[in-house]
């Protein structure tokens, strides 16, 4: 350890959607390492501790050969502009500033843009569009919630500080005794490490969450439910009725939910059932719900997409304006159907975690990849940029899972450019090429002959 030490207070950990902004980072500026991350959880500690700069790694490569950033930008721009159906994907682990550039590029090239939301809480986004939601910032839970229910999520392992900072042991204005002022319920198909934090664990048969939520909705509305509900779902009518009484009689109730709902059969209808349950309960008391979002800035990606295009994910520009249709313009579908002829992948690794059919197509098309580390995707990329890490080497804005925006503080400099810098350069070059292409087309009268037709 060197003498050249800096302490960064109120830094933000962007590993998960909790986006805890109370980090105290000790930075060894010579070693370019974070040696201590006070207040971080086990995931956050690893996030900071394992962050090191591979000084020798090339900042840009074309077909796995090092090139200058300028050459890579040129090749990336040409690849995108020449494509007929290019996609942009990822974006949940970068700043809003970078996300804004990515949408601008996709608008210019009339491509398709989607974020990791589509394979995370995208179904919850669809559910929101169907039924709305009653929701809150996390501080409201800390200050007011006397009933907290986690459904199909395991925050003890995925969001370790969720309990302490916001929802279980946190002490607030009307909950001065923390956990003693709350009843906590965990609902899941398996007894996860989150279950011990709760006063009550309810185990649902796999794939029966919808049935349980639907029965709860009926009971809230005083409709009869047959006792065979236990045989179907594994949860007794008595347990359900008791939970309903508790929900109706609490002062401020919260339903948190995870991908146990969105990733299983029923998908958006599972999330929708939960959101509708929270809405129904507002006839009796104040009740809110919130998806426990994953990556550090996945919520920012939803926000940037929504304000720039009107839609939160799964957006297509091929007609010259944004259109939204999950299942048609979402990335897994497009790749698996082999509809795509180029891809710009930012801060994610679909080649590692997508269904095999989608990965197979990704391997066949030119991929442009921005990542802070070598990944499965960067290895198969035609153009690969190595960028600096948000929240450690860059400033910028991220949105916490409850849509609260937070400004990042930089711990130390990286020799690698930011995502925003690369994307801004690509955008500039793309715009030049698109304008040139448009003029060439205009000169031959081509574009006028085939004006786009009606929109659906």
């Amino acid at each position, binding site marked *: 350890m060197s003498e050249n030490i800096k302490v960064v207070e*109120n830094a*933000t950990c962007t590993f998960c959607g909790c986006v805890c*902004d*109370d980090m105290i980072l000790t930075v060894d500026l010579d070693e370019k390492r974070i040696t201590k991350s006070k207040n971080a959880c086990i995931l956050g500690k690893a996030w900071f501790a394992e962050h090191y700069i591979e000084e020798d790694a090339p900042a840009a490569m074309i077909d796995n050969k090092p090139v200058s950033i300028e050459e890579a930008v040129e090749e990336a721009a040409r690849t995108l502009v020449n494509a007929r159906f290019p996609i942009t994907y990822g974006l949940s682990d970068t700043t*809003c500033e970078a996300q*804004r550039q990515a949408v601008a590029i996709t*608008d210019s090239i009339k491509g398709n843009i989607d974020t990791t939301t589509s394979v995370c809480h995208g179904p919850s986004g669809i559910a*929101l*569009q*169907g*039924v*709305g*939601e*009653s*929701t*809150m*910032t*996390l*501080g*409201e839970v*800390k*200050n*007011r919630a006397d009933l907290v229910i986690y459904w199909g999520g395991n925050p003890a392992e995925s969001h370790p500080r969720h309990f302490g*900072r*916001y929802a279980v042991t946190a002490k607030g*204005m*009307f909950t001065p005794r923390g956990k003693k002022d709350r009843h906590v319920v965990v609902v899941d198909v398996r007894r996860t490490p989150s279950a011990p934090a709760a006063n009550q664990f309810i185990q649902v048969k796999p794939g029966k969450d919808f049935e349980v939520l639907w029965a709860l909705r009926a009971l809230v509305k005083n409709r009869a439910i047959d006792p065979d509900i236990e045989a179907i779902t594994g949860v007794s009518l008595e347990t359900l009725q008791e939970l309903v009484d508790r929900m109706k009689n609490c*002062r*401020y109730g919260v339903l948190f939910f995870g991908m146990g709902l969105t990733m299983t059969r029923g998908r958006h209808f599972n999330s929708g059932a939960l959101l509708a349950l929270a809405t129904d309960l*507002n006839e*009796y*008391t*104040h009740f*809110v719900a919130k998806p426990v979002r994953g990556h550090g800035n996945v919520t920012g990606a*939803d*926000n940037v997409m*929504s*304000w*720039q*295009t*009107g*839609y*939160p994910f799964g957006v297509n*520009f091929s*007609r*010259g*304006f*944004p*259109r*939204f249709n999950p299942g048609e313009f979402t990335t897994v579908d497009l790749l698996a159907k082999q509809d795509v002829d180029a891809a710009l992948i930012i801060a994610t690794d679909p080649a590692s975690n997508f269904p095999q059919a989608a990965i197979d197509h990704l391997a066949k098309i030119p991929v442009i990849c921005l990542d802070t580390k070598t990944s499965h995707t960067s290895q198969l990329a035609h153009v690969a940029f190595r960028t600096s890490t948000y929240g450690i080497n860059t400033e910028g*804005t991220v*949105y*916490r899972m409850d*849509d*609260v*925006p*937070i*400004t990042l503080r930089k711990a130390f400099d990286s020799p690698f450019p930011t995502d925003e810098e690369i994307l801004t350069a690509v955008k500039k070059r793309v715009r030049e090429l698109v304008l040139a292409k448009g003029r060439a087309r205009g000169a031959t009268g081509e574009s006028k002959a085939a004006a786009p037709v009606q*929109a*659906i």
Partner: protein
Amino acid sequence: MTECIQLAGGKVHDPANGIDGDIRDLYLEQGRIVETPSSKPRKIDVSGMVVMPGGVDIHCHIAGPKVNLARKLQPEDHRRDPHPGTEHTRSGAGGTVPSTFATGYRYATLGYTTAMEAAVPPIGARHVIEEFHDTPVIDKGFYVLLGNNIFLQQLIKAGRKEEFRHAVAWWINATKAYTAKLVNPGGDEPWKGKKNSNVKNIDEKSDAIEVSPRQVIESFIETVNDLGLPHPPHIHCNNLGHSGNFETTLETMKTAGDKRVHLAHIQFHSYAGEPGKNPKSASRQIAEYVNEHPNITCDVGQVMFGKSTIMTADAPLAYMLRGFKKAKWVNADTECESGCGIVPFSYQEHVYVHALQWAIGLELFLLSKDPWRIVLSTDHPNGGSFMSYPKLIRLLMDREFRREEIKRVNQKAINGTILNELDREYTLNEIAIITRAGPARALNLKNKGHLGPGADADITIYDEMDDKEAMFNAPRYVVKSGEVIIEDHEFRQDYYGKFLHTEPGYDESIVSEVRPFFENYYSIEFANYAVNDSYLHDHEVIPTV
């Protein structure tokens, strides 16, 4: 480098400078209007056309957390109204809650060059400024929601006036806001903490906070006037939408005494009738009070028929509206600061209440004696989209058109109003006042809303037409900060306007009061709360008065 421009031969409507349709040349240089140009200008012949300052929207909802949530909520609304990009401009989605780009460009295509987002919770300030960066052409600022701020209410309760004033100023600075906004003051706590209830009158104290709405209103009127914020407290009164609420509105105005105050979307607060029963018009009582009190400005919040989106910090109101249709509804609580409700909505001619709301708005316009203090608004998108402003202008300017439209709506509603008896037609100059000069004055934007030397060169040029809706729908030229953005109805370049905010002074020691509250009850760190200057980009600090 902006070029020097001569707008030659137009009929100029510049009521702030007493010019009413005179034929004049205007010279623009370096983004401003100048007496004489320093070099040979590019001459644009606008003879036969009507020249006005760019429009100023004093109250709309165009950016920030609730607006974006309303966007996410309604793909069906965007889908039917796409906004294609051009060589110069970005694409977007329309509908009642357009994407940021569509919002900026569409305001521009109506000749508006400034708009104020009317309700942002402090913790969402960063968000609204980020969206402003992507909202082209127009200058913009926002009002920060402070009326249900628990810390400030505690200071009011404790009678700590001095600390209250510093804390309000601190919050304005920390969020880079334009003024303080009160929405249903005192109503959040019963909504969140007492099983979705609400305060029912201006003197009712909530159990948890023990402060009445009147105390909150009084405190803000006094403090914001003391601080000299360019715009007085912008108040959304209690009991919005409820029958008989005009008394609450009168009480709220009385609370101001002779101090400056702005009443938002006053149409929604001008209802007589028994609570719980159908409303009746109280536009006369309200208009009369406003007419006699020069300290008051208001915007109308006109209802226009068709699709709208209710989005408000008044969460109990949105829940009440949700009850009518049981369709999708959003509630969003913001810790220590605010509530929020969103309901997709539609105003229909045949519905008694909707027709009455429409009529009351028009009555208020027509009964108002001083156009300088009543501003054209639809509380976009609550009463309808800002895209319906041209039609609203025609309703005000064209008596025959208005009569035809009156025939199409619920007659029972009309019969309870005096709308049929009102023959007034707004003149072009009066329209220039209620859409530009008046709101600019109410905002203390000294360089906007007029065309005198030194003014911002934000100018709209219309072809003069008999059909005022068609005229105001499509200006031939729109100039923003001296740049010709729209020429012959087409975008010629992209442009990003300025961010407008104010910076009242305060005593730093207030921070030591705010911080402990913050550390106990907020979920982000105090040090990460205030918006830093990196978000400002192109901005202008409007001085206190």
